């Protein structure tokens, strides 16, 4: 079953070559690149049948075996629903991007980021291993960062990208901690193994509450729940297809996916219930109200997305079969209409040159197809029959009416949010196209086919799904819901359930929604006044306070440590070393003099004498060159000592390092003033001397003690025994470097490269500007 691997990694591969594909066919790159998501959509569609019958598909191989980390994928009802959203909408968005950014010099790079995101997102929803899930999770944050900051020459785009990365990235770290703790409790990082064990071990563990908070911190930051919702509206700095894809249809749903995925482990706990219902409810209402305040099409849609994410969280928190079905149905509904609305917003911006709802009107004649697409999506958003949005809303009402706790409160909140949704749908999807034509910055014209095909298809699917709700419900929603609830369900979805409370609530919603739409101007002013008054204590201000505080602290610390004086750096390093190592040595290792008399051979004593003389010369000398040569003598002496004690590898390396160091010093001297300025006072010289003596004394004591102290069993015998059998080498030093500890070496040569490039940068920068940076 390697199909799942191919499904995830083909996106990364295509992302790597996307810029070249774009260069080969700049006009058609969107259509060409969209063939991969299209093929993946077909691949996942083929799985609908078996999965609706209850099958699940797995694939996996060992990644880091000794940590229990596998790259394992699982395709079940829940992942399938997400996979189809990701690849299906992905196809349309890739096509759309080709048209939206036509002629943009960086379109190739954009395609690469977009495909990388798609692959990462597939990885998130297919991963069965907690660590793999975390890695893909962070990859989505990273690609989101690149996409929001795509227009990187604007400061606002950069700031928004950074904000999204910081908020979702920190949440991701919390999630990792939570997942690792869960892995300890269950003894396995495989999510399906945890599910098989059930919620018992987790919920009876004293760490249950911290784990719950950590996991939800990850989910809430990603899915923009209050108070972490602030990054999402700012992420609208990204181009329209990104907003449609990442920030409406897929990435922001990753948190919802996570909650749904781990629900069987956490469900039943009152904390889980109240955290989800509380945060979800607040987010749902707050997002809807703030959407009314905005005038920019994309920001309105962003806040309504925040609200929709709150609705999803709330529904999952209710933890009834009906509520879970409602959440998953609404997830599908929302992905379809919100994706379409974002894309039409981009098309309107493209065609008319403005996204301000106050400036737009009567565009239906100039942009008939876009108007049709937006209208279809808006009617689904408003929940008008026979659109799928109506089915979604009905199910939500049935779910909240069946809530086990706080039924009145939850139902009124859902009613309020839904009626605001009716108004918002009309404002963004209908209002710009009807009425008299308004003056816009550009003469409005219809978008090219790349720009209208996506939203039109999404809108049409929203309508088609509403006409056959039973099939959609059975094939997608029920299978996914049975995964979330960990038991099978057989509810029937239909447009018409007969007269009941839900239908009555729908009628109220629609009537009240129309009223709100009519009274939108005074309402918007009212909401704006309240949100303005609350701004000083709001989370947006809090984010900047924390950010500024962190940067200020970093600046302070930097000012203390990075003074620019080499001798002060050395002072810090040496003080710390002497302090920490000395403390450990005297209080933990019990300093001792070796009992056996050291056998010093005469030539060793002679060599040491030479080195001592050289060291004293280095101190006393006033000429730099003499100092360097004297230090070189000390260094070569050390190499000889290595040779005496049977370490030719070390000796050889030491000799070469000494040689190159002397050359380096000599070269640097060209750049220094001719004379050593001995302006340092006697007190400073005394301090230098004492530090030098302390360092030397400490190292001596350390070496003498280290000979006798053995805290852990020595690993040397393992290396010498296995060097030939495991690594096929006689030279243990080299085998350790390239095989046993090869990973360390890889890190070291990476650091070496970074240092080399750093020095290069500093030198070039200096000579380029003619002044020290």
């Amino acid at each position, binding site marked *: 079953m390697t199909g799942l691997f191919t499904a995830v990694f083909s996106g990364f591969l295509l992302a790597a070559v996307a810029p070249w594909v774009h260069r080969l066919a700049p006009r058609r790159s969107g259509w060409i690149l969209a063939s991969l998501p299209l093929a993946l959509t077909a691949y996942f569609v083929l799985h609908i049948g078996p999965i609706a019958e209850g099958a699940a598909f797995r694939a996996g191989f060992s990644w880091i075996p000794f940590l229990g980390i596998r790259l394992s994928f699982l395709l079940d009802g829940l992942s399938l629903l997400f996979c189809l959203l990701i690849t299906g909408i992905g196809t349309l968005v890739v096509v759309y991007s080709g048209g939206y950014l036509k002629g943009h010099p960086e379109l190739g790079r954009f395609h690469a980021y977009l495909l990388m995101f798609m692959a990462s997102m597939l990885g998130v929803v297919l991963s069965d291993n907690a660590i793999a899930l975390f890695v893909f999770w962070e990859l989505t944050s990273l690609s989101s960062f690149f996409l929001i900051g795509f227009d990187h020459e604007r400061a606002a785009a950069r700031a928004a990208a950074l904000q999204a990365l910081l908020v979702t990235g920190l949440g991701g770290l919390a999630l990792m901690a939570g997942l690792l703790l869960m892995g300890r409790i269950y003894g396995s990082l495989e999510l399906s193994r945890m599910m098989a064990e059930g919620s018992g071990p987790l919920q009876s563990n004293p760490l249950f509450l911290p784990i719950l908070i950590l996991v939800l911190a990850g989910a809430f930051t990603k899915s923009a729940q209050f108070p972490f919702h602030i990054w999402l509206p700012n992420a609208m700095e990204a181009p329209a297809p990104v907003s449609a894809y990442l920030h409406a249809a897929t990435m922001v749903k990753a948190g919802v996916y996570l909650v749904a995925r781990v629900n069987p482990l956490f469900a039943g706990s009152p904390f889980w219930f109240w955290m989800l219902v509380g945060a979800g409810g607040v987010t749902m209402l707050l997002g809807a109200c703030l959407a009314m305040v905005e005038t920019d099409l994309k920001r309105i849609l962003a806040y309504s997305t925040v609200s929709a994410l709150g609705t999803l969280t709330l529904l999952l928190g209710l933890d009834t079969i009906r509520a879970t079905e409602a959440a998953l149905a609404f997830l599908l509904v929302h992905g379809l209409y919100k994706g379409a609305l974002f894309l039409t917003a981009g098309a309107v911006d493209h065609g008319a040159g403005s996204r301000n709802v106050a400036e737009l009107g009567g565009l239906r004649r100039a942009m008939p197809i876009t108007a049709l697409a937006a209208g279809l999506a808006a009617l689904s958003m408003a929940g008008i029959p026979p659109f799928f949005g109506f089915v979604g809303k009905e199910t939500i009402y049935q779910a909240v009416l069946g809530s086990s706790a706080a039924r009145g409160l939850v139902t009124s909140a859902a009613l309020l949010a839904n009626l605001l949704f009716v108004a918002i749908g009309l404002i963004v999807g209908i209002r710009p196209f009807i009425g008299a034509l308004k003056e816009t910055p550009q003469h409005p014209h219809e978008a090219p086919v790349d720009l209208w095909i996506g939203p039109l298809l999404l809108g049409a699917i929203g309508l088609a799904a509403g006409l056959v709700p039973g099939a959609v419900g059975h094939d997608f929603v029920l299978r996914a819901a049975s995964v979330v609830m960990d038991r099978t369900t057989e509810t029937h979805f239909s447009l018409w359930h007969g007269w009941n409370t839900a239908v009555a609530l729908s009628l109220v919603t629609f009537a009240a929604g129309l009223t709100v739409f009519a009274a939108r101007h005074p309402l918007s002013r009212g909401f704006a006044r309240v949100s303005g008054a609350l701004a000083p204590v709001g989370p947006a201000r809090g984010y900047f306070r924390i950010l500024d505080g962190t940067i200020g602290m970093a600046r302070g610390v930097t000012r203390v440590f990075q003074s620019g004086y080499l001798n002060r750096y050395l002072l810090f390093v040496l003080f710390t070393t002497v302090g920490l190592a000395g403390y450990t040595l005297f209080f933990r290792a019990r300093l001792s003099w070796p009992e056996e008399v050291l056998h010093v051979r005469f030539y060793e004593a002679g060599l040491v004498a030479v080195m001592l003389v050289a060291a004293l010369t280095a101190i006393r000398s006033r000429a730099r060159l003499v100092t360097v040569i004297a230090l070189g003598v000390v260094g070569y002496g050390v190499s000889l000592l290595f040779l005496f004690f049977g370490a030719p590898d070390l000796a050889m390396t030491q000799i070469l390092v000494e040689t190159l160091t002397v050359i380096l010093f000599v*070269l640097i001297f060209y750049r220094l003033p001719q004379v050593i300025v001995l302006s340092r006072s006697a007190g400073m010289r005394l301090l230098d001397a004492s530090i030098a003596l302390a360092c030397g004394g400490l190292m001596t004591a350390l070496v003498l003690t280290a000979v006798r102290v053995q805290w852990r069993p020595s690993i040397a015998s393992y290396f010498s025994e296995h060097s030939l059998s495991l690594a096929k080498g006689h030279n243990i030093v080299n085998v350790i470097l*390239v*095989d046993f500890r090869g990973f360390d070496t890889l890190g070291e040569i990476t650091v070496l490269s970074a240092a*080399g490039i750093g020095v290069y940068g500093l030198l070039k920068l200096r000579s380029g500007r003619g002044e020290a940076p």
Partner: protein
Amino acid sequence: MRSLILAATARFLLPILFMFSIFLLVRGHHLPGGGFVGGLVAAAAFVLYGIAHGVEEARALLRVNTISLLGVGLLLALASGLLPLAGGEAFMTGLWFQHPVPVLGKLGTPVIFDTGVYLVVLGATLTVLFNLVED
């Protein structure tokens, strides 16, 4: 300040030292040597040539950009670690050919890794030293 003796010697020393560095790299798995020392010897050889004949000529003789050496070395080391993944083994598992190659001895991914180390050490040292000499 060009010394004729140094210039003449450097011409002969460069190929000898360079071959010696490769020799060190290849024998490193069984006898003292290895990519790190080999890289340092090669760097010393080019620096010596650079001091004797000027960095321009040393660079021309090297042909490739010193920073490219860094990149290629890092990629080589990484690739040697990634190679076992294709066979379902863990990252950086040592893979060896069954039969030793004449002169070179047994070949395997650790040898590729060591070559990467060699190139990175050579590239980093030369990047720093050449640029210091130049301006």
